[in-house]
C-alpha cells in the first residue's frame, strides 16, 4: 500500500497527507508532531537494532581492509540519523471531537484512528534514554487486540494531557493540573519520573475526588523472593547461551587455553574446585536475580484512583521500574478476575505473584504485583476483585479435589516422559559402547519425577464456587504442577461453557469444564472434573443458562 495519493474519503479539513513533510504542519488541523527529542531517540534506536549485524559487518570488513574499515563508521552513523529521523518527520497525531488519529510512514502510509469512547488505557513507558531526555512513550489501547497506538516520544506534560484528555477522569474533569508529589516517603515515588499527582497515603477506603488509594508499595524485604524466581533464571540462561557465541570468537576462549586451564585446575584439589564453582554460580545468581528484581520493580506502586468513562469508576494504576519506568492503567470495571501463582521455589517461602484478568485490554492478563508474600497477594487480589470479595474469599477458600480418577490421569500424563526417554535410552543400547545399565537411571529419574509431578499437580487441581447472599460470585480453578495457580473468575464474567471429553475421559466419566470469558486468557479450565460435578458447578455459576438443556434427573445407566 504505497500510493502517495490522499485516501478516497474526504475529511472536513484539507488533510495534510499530500503535503511535503518538511513544511510545518498547520496547527488549525490540530495535527501535532512527536517531540523533537525523537531526533535523538530515533537514531539511537536504529543503531541499537542494527548493532549486531553492523558489528559483524565491521569485523568482516576489518579483517580484509584493516583500519580503513573505520571509514564506514561515520557512514553508518549518518545512515542511522537519516533513518532515525524519519519517524519524527512523518508522524503526526491529533485529537478531534470524536477520534484520536495518528498517521505515520513515508512509503507505507498508515492511519490509525481510535474512537475516543473506545480508548481503554493510556500507558506510559520511559526507557533510560527517554528519562534522560525527559520524555516518555505513550501507548493507547482501544481494546481491540493487537492494535495499540504508540506515540514514541512525547513530553511528560503532553503525556499527562493525553492521559487526562483520552481517559477523562470524571472526578477531576479535564483540568490537567499536576500537583507535585509531596514527600512520598517510600523509595517508590523517588524512582518514578512523573510523580503521581495526589499525596501518597491518601485516605484508605472509597477514593474521593482526586484521591488515590494505595493498594501496595514495594517493601525491600520482598527482595528475598527474587533469587527464588526461576523464570528469570531461564532468561539469564538464554542470554548466556546467546553470549557464548561471542566468547567463541575471543582468542582466550579457544579450546587450547581451556584445556590447559582445566589440566592445571585438575591438578588442584577437585572437591574444593567444585565447591568454589558452586559458590561462584550461587553468588552470580544472587547478584543477577536481585539486580533484575530491583531494575524491574523499584519504585513499585499500585494505586486505585478515580478515572474511567462513568461516574464512580476507578482504575488500577501501576508504576514501577528503575531504569525503564512502566506505567500501566487498568480500568477496574473491566477486571473480571485475578490469577494467583505461587511458583515452584517461592511457594516454600510463602511467596506469590498476582495478575488481573481484564476484558478489552490487549493481552488481558496484567501482572500487578512483583513477587511478594502470599498474604499481600491475597489481600490485594481480594481488594481488586471488589468490596465484597474479601467476604467470599475466593483466593483462600478450600478447593474441591477431583478424586482418584483425576489423580490416575495425572500419573498417566506424567509418565509419558518416562516412556519416551526410557525408549530412547533403550534405543541407545543399540549403539556400541553404551553400558547395559544406562537405561536404568534414566527410567528411575523420570519415573520419580513423574510421580512427584503428578502428585503435586493433583494436589493443586481443584475447583470452588463462592457465593454471597445465595448468588454465585466467583468461579475458582486450581491448576499447575510444581507452581500452584489459582484462577478466580467472577461469575458474571462467564460467557459460555465448553464441556470437553476426550476418549479416555469418557471412559472414566471425567471431563474438562471450560468457562469461556472475554477476560485474561479467554478461558478458565477446570481439568478432569467428574462430569456430574462439573455440570453442577457450571449450573450453579450461571443460574438458568443450562436449565433448558437439563436432562430429566433420573436416568438409568
Amino acid at each position, binding site marked *: 500500500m504505497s500510493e502517495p495519493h490522499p485516501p478516497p474519503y474526504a475529511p472536513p479539513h484539507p488533510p495534510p497527507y499530500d503535503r511535503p513533510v518538511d513544511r510545518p504542519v498547520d496547527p488549525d488541523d490540530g495535527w501535532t508532531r512527536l517531540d523533537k527529542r525523537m531526533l535523538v531517540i530515533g537514531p539511537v534506536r536504529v543503531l541499537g537494532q542494527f548493532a549486531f549485524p553492523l558489528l559483524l559487518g565491521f569485523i568482516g570488513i576489518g579483517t580484509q581492509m584493516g583500519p580503513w574499515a573505520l571509514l564506514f563508521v561515520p557512514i553508518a552513523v549518518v545512515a542511522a540519523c537519516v533513518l532515525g529521523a524519519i519517524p519524527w518527520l512523518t508522524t503526526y497525531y491529533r485529537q478531534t471531537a470524536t477520534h484520536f488519529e495518528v498517521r505515520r510512514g513515508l512509503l507505507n502510509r498508515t492511519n490509525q484512528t481510535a474512537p475516543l469512547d473506545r480508548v481503554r488505557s493510556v500507558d506510559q513507558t520511559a526507557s533510560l534514554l527517554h528519562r534522560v531526555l525527559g520524555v516518555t512513550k505513550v501507548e493507547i489501547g482501544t481494546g481491540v487486540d493487537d492494535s495499540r497506538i504508540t506515540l514514541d516520544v512525547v513530553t511528560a506534560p503532553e503525556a499527562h494531557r493525553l492521559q487526562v484528555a483520552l481517559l477523562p477522569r470524571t472526578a477531576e474533569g479535564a483540568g490537567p493540573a499536576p500537583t507535585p508529589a509531596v514527600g512520598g516517603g517510600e523509595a517508590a515515588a523517588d524512582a518514578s519520573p512523573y510523580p503521581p499527582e495526589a499525596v501518597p497515603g491518601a485516605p484508605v477506603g472509597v477514593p474521593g475526588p482526586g484521591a488515590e488509594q494505595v493498594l501496595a508499595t514495594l517493601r525491600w524485604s520482598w527482595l528475598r523472593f527474587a533469587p527464588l524466581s526461576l523464570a528469570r533464571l531461564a532468561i539469564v540462561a538464554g542470554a548466556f547461551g546467546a553470549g557464548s557465541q561471542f566468547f567463541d570468537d575471543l582468542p582466550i576462549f579457544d579450546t587450547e587455553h581451556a584445556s590447559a586451564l582445566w589440566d592445571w585446575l585438575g591438578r588442584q584439589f577437585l572437591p574444593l574446585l567444585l565447591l568454589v564453582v558452586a559458590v561462584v554460580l550461587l553468588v552470580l545468581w544472587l547478584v543477577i536475580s536481585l539486580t533484575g528484581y530491583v531494575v524491574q520493580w523499584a519504585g513499585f506502586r499500585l494505586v486505585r484512583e478515580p478515572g474511567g468513562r462513568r461516574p464512580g469508576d476507578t482504575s488500577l494504576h501501576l508504576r514501577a521500574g528503575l531504569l525503564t519506568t512502566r506505567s500501566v492503567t487498568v480500568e477496574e470495571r473491566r477486571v473480571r478476575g485475578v490469577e494467583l501463582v505461587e511458583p515452584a521455589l517461592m511457594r516454600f517461602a510463602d511467596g506469590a505473584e498476582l495478575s488481573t484478568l481484564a476484558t478489552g485490554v490487549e493481552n488481558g492478563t496484567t501482572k500487578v504485583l512483583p513477587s511478594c508474600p502470599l498474604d499481600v497477594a491475597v489481600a490485594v487480589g481480594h481488594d481488586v476483585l471488589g468490596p465484597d470479595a474479601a467476604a467470599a474469599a475466593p483466593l483462600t477458600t478450600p478447593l474441591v479435589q477431583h478424586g482418584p480418577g483425576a489423580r490416575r490421569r495425572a500419573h498417566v500424563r506424567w509418565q509419558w516422559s518416562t516412556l519416551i526417554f526410557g525408549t530412547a535410552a533403550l534405543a541407545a543400547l543399540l549403539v556400541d559402547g553404551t553400558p547395559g545399565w544406562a537405561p536404568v537411571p534414566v527410567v528411575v529419574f523420570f519415573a520419580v519425577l513423574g510421580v512427584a509431578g503428578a502428585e503435586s499437580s493433583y494436589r493443586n487441581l481443584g475447583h470452588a464456587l463462592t457465593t454471597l447472599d445465595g448468588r454465585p460470585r466467583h468461579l475458582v480453578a486450581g491448576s499447575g504442577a510444581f507452581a500452584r495457580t489459582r484462577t478466580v473468575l467472577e461469575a458474571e464474567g462467564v460467557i*459460555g461453557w465448553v464441556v470437553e471429553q476426550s476418549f479416555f475421559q469418557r471412559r472414566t466419566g471425567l471431563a474438562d469444564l471450560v468457562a469461556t470469558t472475554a477476560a485474561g486468557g479467554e478461558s478458565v479450565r477446570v481439568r478432569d472434573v467428574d462430569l456430574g460435578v462439573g455440570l*453442577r458447578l457450571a449450573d450453579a455459576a450461571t443460574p438458568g443458562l443450562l436449565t*433448558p438443556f437439563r436432562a430429566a434427573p433420573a436416568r438409568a445407566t
Partner: protein
Amino acid sequence: MSTPTSPPRQDPPADPTPVALRLPAHQVSPRARGYWRLTAALATSLPVIGLAVAWVLWGERPWWFTLLLVASVVVLLVEVVVMPPLRYRIHRWEVTGDAVHTRSGWLSIDERVAPLSRVQTVDSSQGPIQRMFRLRSLTVTTASAAGPISIECLDEQLARELVADLTAITSATRDDAT
C-alpha cells in the same frame, strides 16, 4: 470406543443433585456423512498412496514399513467407514430463545453452551466440497476467543434461515457482551 448401541453419554455417578445435559434437539443434515466421508478420504488417502508407492518401489523393505502401510490403511478405513456415521450420531445442535447448545466430535466430544445475550457475530461459511453437498456451516462467536460455537454441515437453506433468526435475536440485545 463406545459401541453403537450404548447411550452416547455416560451418566454421572451417584450424586445428591445430579445435573446432566440432555442431547441437543436437532441433528445436522444427513448429507454431512457423505461430506465427512469424502473429505476424510481425500485427506487420508494421500499419505496412504505415498506409502503404497514407496512400498512397491522399495525392494528390500523392512518389516516395520509394511506395518506402517497396514496401519495407515486401517486409519483410512476407520476414517471413511466408522467415523462419518459415528460423528453424524454425535453432532447435535439446538437454539433456544436465549442460548445455543452444540455437541460435536467423535472420539473426543465437545459440548458448548453460550447465551445469546453474549453472542457477538453470527457467520456462515461454505467450502467448495460443502457446496457440492449443499451444506453450510454456521459459527457463532462470543467475546471470548475460546468460545466460538460452530454447527457444521447444516442444510444450506436451514443454515440461512438460522443465521437470519440468530442475527435478529442477537441484534435485539446490544451490550458490550463481555
